[in-house]
């Protein structure tokens, strides 16, 4: 339609291109910018996270919004799980595009597809920006970076031994004129300082990367993306690791980058910040796009947190969950936390779990759920008091906790929960190995180990033909059953299970729920930590919600029967105050 500049890489060049292409088909669909901004009313500042982010309307940007990157019918199949199912999305220049959804909804997979670290099973990723679309096949992240698509990972990837400037220009070091070999350190520092200034970050380019705070490191990561001329920046939960002030600064930076004509894509669980900065919000659920919101003249789709939360969780609680057993409220708690916490990660957590009761613990990633559980069994320093069976205790290692009947099934099955290179038998008997040891540990009764393993295989209907082979050969669900069985074999009184169905297929999920319900019915006190709200609600007698390391609220059994309980948990977990909820 209009002559295109072939220049796709240069930042300045691409800006010109957009200006010159006002009339392209894509940009017409979006509508006049002025209308978009006029349609947005200032939103109330609600949460600590965005306390200092101005929520004024976005300034009108000069260029029309061109689609820079698009996902077309992207489907990603993992063994036993369809992570993404025919996802269509477009990411436009000059827009902040938020992607929200529950854990397991496929957000991270989508990010990985866009940034080239996962290849879609079906569908394609297209690069736009020059009027027409071009399908691209990113086979590795560097392909995407070359095409101007950069991802800032949650775990930052700076080289600690190098300074800030060296990190920013890693792989694109300016070389001296004379020999073309030596790195021009002055030029490197200047260029880095220039990029940091662009971000409004006051970081000394000569500072060692190891000395940076998390927030500073994130800014350096972003500067790195700018150094590679990224026009699409993807952020995976960027504010999860930041405090309120730094989060606000980061969101302000998002706006600045957006106004320069870049496309910002970010995943967030903090719905308040999504509402504050996102121009466009897409809700994913079970690998599909269920709803899209935009700040445009379409008043019917006014973006607010309630609408987002409702769209995120709008799933039927199926019959996957077994009947909740009765639980004696008067019984002495099997375990009681009083102002307990993992030093530095959580504090003031008070909760009690009685025999036969399942207490759900909900909260966002980083809310201190796992850390608190690890502190209970002695994997982390703890504060406050812990009572097990009425006795005040403090465990220094999982071994001591095990002796007192408190066990913890880790969320990280591969890294911590199981020895993936060892056999299913060895894994099953690992914590209870003393029972098979004869002659003071000189001899382990292999036959008895095999019998025990066979018993659990029958009991939990584990699909495992050769328990003597490495457990990594089993599917996630079967591994998880072994991870649970190994601890049950020790005869615990309190079971803390973290993300019981992570990486587990739907069929096995139901079986694990049944197992947990049966265990509770037999008198085991269970704490179920989960990011999957239906799971927490469907299993638990009570749900405690953590936010930023503290208990944000508790939902009783009756409250869990009400229809809006998921929404309530989402609100509590995102740090929305009680007052706010009563208002709405």
């Amino acid at each position, binding site marked *: 339609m209009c002559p295109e500049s072939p220049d796709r890489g240069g930042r300045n060049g691409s800006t010109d291109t957009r200006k010159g292409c006002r009339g392209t088909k894509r940009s017409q669909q979006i509508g006049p910018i002025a209308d978009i901004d006029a349609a947005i009313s200032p939103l109330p500042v609600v949460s600590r996270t965005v306390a200092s982010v101005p929520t004024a309307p976005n300034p009108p940007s000069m260029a029309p919004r061109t689609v820079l990157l698009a996902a077309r019918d992207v489907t990603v199949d993992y063994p036993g799980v369809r992570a993404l199912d025919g996802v269509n999305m477009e990411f436009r220049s000059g827009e902040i595009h938020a992607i929200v959804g529950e854990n397991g909804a496929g957000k991270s997979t989508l990010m990985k597809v866009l940034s080239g670290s996962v290849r879609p099973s079906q569908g394609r990723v297209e690069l736009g920006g020059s009027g027409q679309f071009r399908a691209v096949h990113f086979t590795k992240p560097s392909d995407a970076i070359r095409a101007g698509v950069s991802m800032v990972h949650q775990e930052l990837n700076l080289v600690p031994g190098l300074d800030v400037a060296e990190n920013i220009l890693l792989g694109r070091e300016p070389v001296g004129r004379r020999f073309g070999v030596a790195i021009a350190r002055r030029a490197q520092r200047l260029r880095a300082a220039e990029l940091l200034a662009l971000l409004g970050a006051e970081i000394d380019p000569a500072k060692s990367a190891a000395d940076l705070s998390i927030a500073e490191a994130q800014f350096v990561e972003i500067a790195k993306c700018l150094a590679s001329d990224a026009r699409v920046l993807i952020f995976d939960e960027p504010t999860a690791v930041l405090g309120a002030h730094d989060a606000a600064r980061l969101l302000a930076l998002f706006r600045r980058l957006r106004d320069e004509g870049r496309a910002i894509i970010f995943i967030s669980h903090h719905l308040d910040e999504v509402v504050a900065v996102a121009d466009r919000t897409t809700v994913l659920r079970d690998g599909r796009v269920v709803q899209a919101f935009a700040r445009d003249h379409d008043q019917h789709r006014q973006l607010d947190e309630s609408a987002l939360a409702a769209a995120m969780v709008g799933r039927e609680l199926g019959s996957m969950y077994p009947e909740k057993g009765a639980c004696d409220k008067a019984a002495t708690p099997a375990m009681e936390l009083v102002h307990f916490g993992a030093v530095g990660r959580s504090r003031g957590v008070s909760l009690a779990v009685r025999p036969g009761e399942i207490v759900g613990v909900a909260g966002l990633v980083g809310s201190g759920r796992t850390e608190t559980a690890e502190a209970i069994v002695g*994997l982390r320093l703890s504060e406050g008091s812990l009572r097990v069976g009425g006795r005040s205790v403090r465990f220094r*290692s999982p071994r001591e906790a095990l002796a007192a009947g408190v066990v913890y099934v*880790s969320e990280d099955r*591969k890294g*911590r929960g199981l020895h993936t*290179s*060892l056999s299913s038998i060895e894994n099953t008997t690992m914590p209870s*190995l003393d029972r098979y040891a004869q002659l003071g540990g000189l001899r382990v009764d292999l036959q008895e180990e095999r019998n025990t393993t066979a018993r659990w295989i029958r009991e939990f209907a584990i699909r495992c033909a050769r328990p003597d082979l490495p457990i990594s050969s089993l599917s996630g669900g079967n591994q998880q059953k072994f991870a649970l069985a190994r601890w049950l074999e020790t005869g615990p009184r309190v079971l803390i299970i973290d993300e019981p169905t992570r*990486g587990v297929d739907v069929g096995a999920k139901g079986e694990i729920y049944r197992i947990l319900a049966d265990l509770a019915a037999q008198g085991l006190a269970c704490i179920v930590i989960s990011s999957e709200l239906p799971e927490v609600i469907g299993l638990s007698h009570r749900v405690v919600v953590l936010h930023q390391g503290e208990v944000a609220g508790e939902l009783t059994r009756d409250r869990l029967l009400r229809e809006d309980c998921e929404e309530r948990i989402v609100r509590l977990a995102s740090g929305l105050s009680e007052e706010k909820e009563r208002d709405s």
Partner: protein
Amino acid sequence: MSGTIQDAKSQRPRAGAQVFLQQWGVLVAFGLLLAISTWREGFDFLSFENFRTILNSNAAVGILAVGMTFVIVSAGIDLSVGSMVVLAAAIGVTTMNWAAGREWSEGNSVALGVCATLVTGLAAGMVNGALIVFGRIAPFIATLGGLAAFRSVALAIAEAGEIRSSSSTLFAKFGRSGVPLAWESGVNESGSPVFTGLTNAAGKPLTLTYGMIAFVVIAIVAQWFLSRSRFGRHVVAVGANETAARYAGIGVDWVRFRVYAIMGLLAGFAGLLLSSRMNSVSTSGLGLGAELDAIAAVVIGGTSLRGGFGRVWGTVIGVLILAMITNILTISQVSPYWQGAVKGGVIVLAVLVQRGARD
């Protein structure tokens, strides 16, 4: 999600040949070497006496390699074994001489010397273990320090010279004599005794030296411990994934500490064997480079350098393979200067085969 992907990867069937080589490569290599040796040296090579000689001269390195198997299975390394050997031997013989100088009976002073040797080895191993476990120093670095420091102490004791044992025969018995496999059954015409049982070409009885008996017994016990005992299971678990072992309630620190302490004790035992055989200790030469031979034997035996998998019987064959390579090269009149290159090549090859099978 990413877990699911990796699970899928590990489900991918590995090539059969690779698995076979990783599991049984050491036996294949051993068989090949036997064939080559027999071809080069004739059927005498397969004789009992020849194997007896090889076992005997490699007993000390073999004992070190057995201990090293545990260290490497626990995902560690011990570079200080050669230095622990010389330190233990030097202190042992010095103590023995001191006791003899104070008019102790030979038996008592030898007993004290033997104890001092073993205790010194154990203590050195415990120092390594403490540095690694409580000092949180990487095993490579901690034992690199030991490699320099332990020998240095031994050199200082003897001013880099030799320490001769004051015991005339008793101390040397342990290293030199053994259980004879033939007994005197009469006297021939010329009046010299005739032996029944296993004898050498000259009609003299063959003996199983105490050193080789110790090596074999230690290897068998160690194999049992590694594969059948609770301690062995814990060592494997710690080596396979230390974090997972901690989460499973295993006292990871205590397990690792014991591994290095046992390594030290075995190094002391090897030192005893070597000093007794010489009836003296050369502080500059004894145990020099032993860590290399021990680690090489373990790796050739198929134990994973990443930890979490290993077997003592493989290590024993690894020791034999190294000895046979030296043997063949010597017989083939390859310059001793070149022997190191061949050994080095074999070690690298063993690691390559291992890695090919594991990735």
